[in-house]
């Protein structure tokens, strides 16, 4: 409480003081030019201190050796590309990207369109949105119970195994089985992300004028044709923003993998690999190199995202 008061009071005092200084000492003509910068400066300073400098430092460290003592050029990158576990992380991440983005965006869109047509719309939408409020770690803990595995013959405490053993099947080690575990993890993220996609897409769907749909209906379109030829093109920019936002989120995915499997049994992703290089193996060079690769992967998607935001409607 005290911290909040002091903090926000301090910010107000800072801006007020700076403004008063400029008002008093700057000559009339210059004042208009300086004033905007006075207000921008604190934010810019914070950005430089907490974003720009660390980024530059990370790039620099990625060119040094494990202890950051001597310059090794690109050898961190080269060794990473040669490392099979890094390859596995890349492969899995692409899996994640396609799986989570594809399923949660299309599922979100489907629910948005279908819920739009029923009278009790808020109920399914609330239920699907609910997981959004749960942190990744919290969700992982919940799903740990769902996926829990005990050897055959003993009591199953996991929901999924409880169901399938009661149907007479053998229990499955969802998180250990190499053919399944990545899907099991991806499902968690889909569960978390679909609500977000649905809410944004639903707002966009509601933004389409009713007359447009009626015109299409008179023009002879059936409901499926209306969906693909009118609804989807008209909310294209929202679909793009939702997809890129999800892609960004998935690229950085770490918590779920770390809590559920710690990246073992072939579930490694880029971020969990980075964590391992950095904090388990204490190889700052390689850890930073992974961070830089992640950054490079994120940038083009960021650009698309920001561009779409700048012109929110393509109408």
């Amino acid at each position, binding site marked *: 409480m005290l911290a909040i008061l002091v903090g926000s009071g301090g910010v107000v005092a800072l801006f007020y003081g700076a403004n008063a200084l400029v008002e008093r000492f700057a000559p009339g003509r210059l004042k208009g030019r300086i004033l905007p910068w006075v207000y921008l400066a604190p934010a810019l300073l914070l950005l430089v201190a907490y974003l720009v400098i660390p980024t530059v430092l990370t790039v620099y460290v990625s060119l040094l050796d494990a202890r950051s003592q001597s310059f090794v050029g690109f050898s961190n990158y080269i060794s990473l590309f040669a490392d099979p576990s890094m390859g596995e992380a890349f492969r899995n991440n692409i899996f994640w990207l396609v799986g989570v983005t594809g399923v949660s965006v299309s599922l979100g869109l489907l629910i948005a369109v279908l819920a739009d047509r029923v009278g009790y719309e808020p109920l399914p939408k609330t239920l699907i949105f609910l997981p959004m409020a749960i942190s990744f770690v919290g969700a992982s803990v919940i799903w740990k119970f769902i996926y829990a595995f005990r050897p055959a013959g003993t009591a199953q405490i996991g929901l999924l195994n409880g169901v399938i053993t009661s149907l007479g099947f053998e229990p499955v080690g969802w998180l250990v089985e190499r053919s399944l575990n990545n899907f099991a993890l991806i499902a968690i993220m889909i569960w978390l992300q679909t609500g977000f996609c649905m809410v944004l897409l639903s707002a966009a769907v509601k933004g389409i*004028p009713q*007359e*447009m749909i*009626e*015109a*299409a*209906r*008179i*023009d*002879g*379109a*059936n409901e499926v*044709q209306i969906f693909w*030829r*009118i609804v989807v*093109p*008209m909310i*294209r920019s929202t679909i793009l923003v939702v997809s890129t936002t999800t892609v960004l989120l998935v690229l950085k995915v770490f918590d779920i993998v770390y809590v559920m499997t710690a990246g073992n049994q072939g579930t490694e992703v880029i971020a969990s690999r980075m964590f391992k290089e950095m904090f388990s193996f204490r190889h700052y060079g390689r850890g930073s190199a992974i961070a830089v690769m992640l950054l490079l992967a994120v940038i083009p998607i960021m650009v698309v995202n920001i561009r779409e935001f700048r012109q929110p409607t*393509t*109408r």
Partner: protein
Amino acid sequence: MPSVTFKSVTKRYSEFVALRDLDIEIGDREFLVFVGPSGCGKTTTLRLLAGLDSVTAGDIYIGDRRVNELASRDRDIAMVFQSYALYPHMTVYDNMAFSLELQGLGRGDIQQRVQRAAQQMGLEDLLHRKPKDLSGGQRQRVAVCRAIVRNPAVFLMDEPLSNLDAQLRVQARTEISRLHRELKSTFIYVTHDQVEAMTMGTRIAILNQGVLQQIDTPQAIYSSPKNKFVAGFIGSPAMNFFDGALVEMTDQLWFKSDALSLPLPPTTSAQCQRYVGQRVICGLRPEDIHDRCYLPPGMVTAPLKGTITHTESMGHEVIVYLTLGDEQSCVARVDRRSTLTLGDRVELAVNTAVLHLFDPHTEEAIS
């Protein structure tokens, strides 16, 4: 080209009755205009016919086919919406081609039909633009064009001109009338603008509170309105109404009120016998009140005395507002050369050949 028939059609939205027992037969190649104040049920009628809403009771026929349960796309209709409802992500060409593509027409066919329709509306140069790059008038023409290209049996138009400025509206009005002549199909048009109704319709249907008031040619509706609502709705400035009584004096029927007394023409007197000695409402159109100095020759008139409270010179005519005695006011439309001025106490001349009498209880015309 088929006709359209409404058989005692009723539409209810939960408690609210939007349309009550509508019976209309719309002939082939007719241009029927539905007109009425907001919420009178005119748009509802159009939506029922388009299949965008379902009827609560009654039947709708297009030709011999009962279409109550038929989907919009199978009704062989096209509709122009008030907001135009152009697809924003498609070019003008694609907007027009959309329905043809859905019909499964070949590429060449589509191109030919779109080109022909575009020529008809003068849109050839705009085919590759998106709706957002068009002006309001151009959008309206695209919306009409999108309907033409389908070559439907019935055209439905829901206030298509209400988003245009006055000048464009006049132009678009003549254009739609021209289309009706050229296409030789049935047009059903909804508007709240009586000028559009009078100038475009071959017949006008006037609705009020979901009930059909009168359906007839524009001229018939203007000259013999069936009730007080129709009389007051059609005509601008609106008809003047006077409360009074019908009395018989010296072998002649007179309409008498505090402000004026008018002899009824011999032709109408006969039909009014049973109202003698009873209260009636008399309706006078503003153009039937004249400046005495510019009276058409041979007109039988009665005097109307009042004080001028306001005048509007329109150029081709002068609108004069008067008070007659207490509380009773009246509007007259007089010759443009008239020199009546504000504050004058004047005597104007009423053409007694065109009085409209209404029953004060039912508000039906007495005839």
